């Protein structure tokens, strides 16, 4: 793939990941990411994601991990893979550009947790507080 700097426009201004320079100012001296370095990032992400996916399917085998711990292992592998995708594919970093994105993500995670774990918590407790169906039927029959 060839690079043609003269075609670049406003899209390329502002900061790339890990590099900041003011609009219109000459580059700060840091090298922009090369094809090789970016490619390595994606390949590393792919390898990590594939390894975590393989680990999830492998963990299903009850002889490998203590039975009751499998669910927790799967959740940990899944969350780790989400992290890998966010960092290597979506390029979510701690750079100033990404502060807003990271804060929005944190808020999203909060809402998702409230909906998911809140629903499970409420619904399972509601089932516990209901009269069992068998008792209810007997009350009607007798």
């Amino acid at each position, binding site marked *: 793939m060839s690079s043609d700097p003269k075609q670049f426009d406003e899209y390329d201004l*502002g900061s790339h990941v890990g590099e900041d320079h003011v609009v219109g100012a000459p580059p700060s001296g840091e090298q922009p990411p090369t094809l090789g370095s970016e490619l390595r990032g994606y390949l590393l992400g792919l390898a990590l994601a594939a390894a975590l*996916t393989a680990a999830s*399917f492998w963990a*299903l085998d009850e002889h490998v991990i203590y039975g009751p711990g499998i669910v927790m292992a799967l959740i940990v592998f*899944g969350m780790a893979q989400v992290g890998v995708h966010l960092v290597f594919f979506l390029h979510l970093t701690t750079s*100033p550009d990404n502060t*807003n*994105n990271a804060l929005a993500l944190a*808020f999203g995670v909060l809402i998702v947790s409230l909906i998911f774990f809140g629903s499970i918590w409420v*619904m399972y407790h509601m089932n516990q507080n209901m009269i069992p169906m068998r008792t209810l039927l007997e009350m009607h029959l007798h």
Partner: protein
Amino acid sequence: MSAPEGALRAGSDPYHIGHAPAAGVPEYTGHGAGGPSPKRIVVGYGFWIFILSDVILFSCFFATYTVLIHARNSGPGPQQLFDLHVTAAETACLLLSSFTCGMTSLAVARHNLLWSEIFLAITGLLGLTFLGLEAHEFHGLVAQGDGPTRSAFLTSFFALVGCHGVHVTAGLLWLGTMMAQFPAKGFKQSIRYRYLCFSLFWHALDIIWIGIFTVVYLIGTITQ
């Protein structure tokens, strides 16, 4: 506005507004003096907000599935219904397509039409393979009488996985649009903003799928 003395130097960015002032430019105070962020950052942020709202939508479906997984009306459960080999193949398709979507981003950043189109085509074929596998699985379930009307558990399963499938379908239509627009309109800014949003969308679909294969298929299969 008075900033701390230590912060008053060129090149510093004490308020994290995204770009440090060049030498000779007055200190940015963090109150808009540095100007707005570049449009690429703003576009990405706006679409990121949409994606997060979509993730919240999916979290409702995930919660429904987890609550209803035992509501089977004496019907079959995940252990009898799901073939994890198909799930593994679907997972491989989406993960590889996420990678080739990243390769497309590298080609687009370098204004390389040929490689952009090649990697977009591979991404689309992997997405189509994924949809084909999913459609085959759904068709098999409905044909054996285990469609969405069989039990509350199956309703929630078809709603969650089907919603993801609809998103992949929409993503493929968008992908086709990009394949047509790169040759027709070139790598001008508006098209590249559009592609930036598409790549965010496609990567986010793969993240949703991580949740689906973990919660629906893997944890579902070991739940009695």
